[in-house]
């Protein structure tokens, strides 16, 4: 692996809520190399979005952020808003789940893209508009000149997401974070947008972090996969090592996620292996492994000591006292 583009070390994010500190992200470390795709997987509330928003400097001022995140050697945590703004957009950009809510409904989409360009570069309005049309072409929007003059409501969900991607790419960032960017889209549109993102990644030599709840998406499109639970990374490995025939999932939570996915190969009406309960309350985390209360294999040590995330096999890190053997589909 070449020199890392983004290096995150021991990132911690807490929010004050009624006198208690809610630890949303608890000691997360990872790195992304240029041109690579990292998937961060987890359920709602696992801390995947908060981690990335902390890196982007998009959390509310009440958030208590500790640790380090370096983009090409520059420390991002603790930067002032104005310093952060120099990086955000130009070095790194983010695409969100709901393009309808991220776009201004009263402004033509082309002008919104042109505005994004002029925020970062001192170019004339006309020049910005020419670049905006080029960006629309870059994200494969047919009849870009015509679409430039349309309002967000005139575009389909897939088109709007393309516009958001165009805007994010306005300054050719080195890192693009896609936060559930295809979750609200139909499968055929999702496939189109993912293909587009991977094509653009190659063209622009970008690193891509995709945040998703969908392990299938991670398996299909990512190089490296991180699974988060209750604010911590519980397993991390190259996608090829985790999934498929030779795959070896070790952490019990990852296994449970994989087993719960509806599967074409299963006969109709098959009973699904289920995990009861729900993720722990972040203000009252259990003393041991956070997943222990829901885990079928939890033993006494799981409930007492927190398992550390350690590299047990080359490139494969997991945090579990009693990991699955041989991928353990049981």
């Amino acid at each position, binding site marked *: 692996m070449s020199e890392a583009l983004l290096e995150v070390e021991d990132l911690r994010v807490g929010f004050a809520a009624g006198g208690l500190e809610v630890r949303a992200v608890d000691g997360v470390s990872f790195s992304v190399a240029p041109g690579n795709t990292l998937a961060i997987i987890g*359920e709602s509330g696992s801390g995947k979005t908060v981690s990335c928003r902390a890196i982007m400097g998009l959390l509310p001022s009440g958030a208590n952020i500790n640790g380090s995140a370096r983009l090409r050697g520059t420390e991002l945590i603790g930067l002032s808003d104005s310093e952060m703004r120099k990086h955000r957009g130009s070095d790194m950009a983010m695409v969100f789940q709901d393009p309808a809510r991220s776009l201004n409904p009263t402004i033509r989409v082309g002008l919104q893209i042109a505005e994004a360009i002029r925020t970062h570069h001192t170019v004339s309005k006309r020049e910005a508009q020419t670049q905006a049309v080029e960006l629309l072409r870059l994200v494969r929007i047919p009849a870009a000149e015509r679409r430039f003059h349309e309002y967000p409501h005139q575009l389909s969900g897939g088109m709007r997401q393309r516009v958001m991607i165009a805007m994010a790419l306005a300054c050719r960032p080195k890192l693009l974070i896609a936060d559930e960017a295809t979750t609200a889209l139909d499968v055929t549109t999702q496939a189109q947008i993912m*293909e587009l993102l991977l094509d653009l990644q190659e063209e622009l030599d970008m690193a891509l972090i995709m945040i998703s709840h969908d392990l299938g998406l991670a398996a299909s499109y990512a190089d490296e996969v991180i699974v988060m639970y209750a604010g911590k990374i519980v397993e991390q490995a190259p996608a090829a090592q985790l999934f498929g025939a030779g795959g070896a999932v070790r952490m019990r939570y990852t296994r449970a996620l994989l087993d719960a996915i509806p599967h*074409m190969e299963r006969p109709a009406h098959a009973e699904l292996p289920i995990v009861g309960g729900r993720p722990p309350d972040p203000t009252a985390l259990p003393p041991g492994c956070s997943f222990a209360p829901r885990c079928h294999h939890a033993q006494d040590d799981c409930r007492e000591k927190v398992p550390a995330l350690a590299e047990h096999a080359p490139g494969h890190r997991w945090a579990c006292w009693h990991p699955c053997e041989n991928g353990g589909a049981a």
Partner: protein
Amino acid sequence: MTVPQQNATPAGEPLLSARDVVQEFVVRERGGAKAGVVQAVSSVSFDVMPGETVGIVGETGSGKSTLARAILQSPRPKSGSVVFRGTELTKLRGRQLLQARRNMQFVFQDPFGSLDPKWRVRSIVEEPLIAYHVGNRASRRKRVDELLDIVGLDPARYAKRHPRELSGGQAQRVAIARAVALEPSLLICDEAVSSLDVLIQAQVLNVFERLRKDLGLSYVFIAHDLALVKQVSDRVAVMYLGKLCETGPGESVYRKPLHPYTRGLLDSIPSTEPGAARASATVKGEPPSPINPPSGCRFRTRCPRATDLCADEEPLPRELAPGHLVACHFPLTEAAPAAAANGEAQGTAQNTAAAGTAQPTTSKAVS
């Protein structure tokens, strides 16, 4: 797959039979001038046998939710017939319709949107019992406890809660408890688990399966997630732009899809098998507007196999395998198309079946 039922329809008769259901909405310009007609559901027919689960898959705007609501007569379909347990629903009004609908219940996507936030769980589940004058206060109380138990919620813990004190999965289970309170024979689930996290989704799906076994429930299960639909359904119907393009037994539709659209949908699903991954976006472009749907086959504008015939003539459903119907002039099958009269179409059906990438020999790709 038929399960005996306490209040069943005559043997061999479908529980629900929809014939040529059409639903259209007029779009008006500012000022009220007619701008067009959205052909949301166009001549859709299907049956649900007692104890059977029929899955309907389709993308946003394919009309699957509109179809479900047309079955429920809310709003009433523009034309066509919906026969439920031997009764024609489209002719019923007022109280008669209410009585007929008692045996047909709905579960929607957003549980919080369908549960009154000011009510407690007990009142929410009890409401249908009161509305249909079932039992007295004491027996209803007992019944609510039973119902919460069926969906896996401890009545002692949850009956007094408000919806906001529940997680998404718990709230959806309350909605299910309410839906089965009157012992319906049919449950229509419209994206009922789509907004739930995958572990919670599995819990709710198991609740559906248990109800099917224990109460002999039939389901119409509507979702955009094909794998999900496959898992719960005996038969699957694929909907595109207001029409059913393929229906058949679940296994048959997934293993040997006959319609190019079904094939495309299947190829678009991200899989946890890396080998099967990255089917490079097999369905190109976006669905056309339902206001002026394409002539002939509605999928032809995105279909790699489309020819002039597809534009001129609408393909009618044909049965190419037992119980497996497809509405396509050039289905993905090795056997020569039954409509051999189409002359030049002959050659096209030879190649394909296994490889979704196969190109028909005589047809030219349209955009």
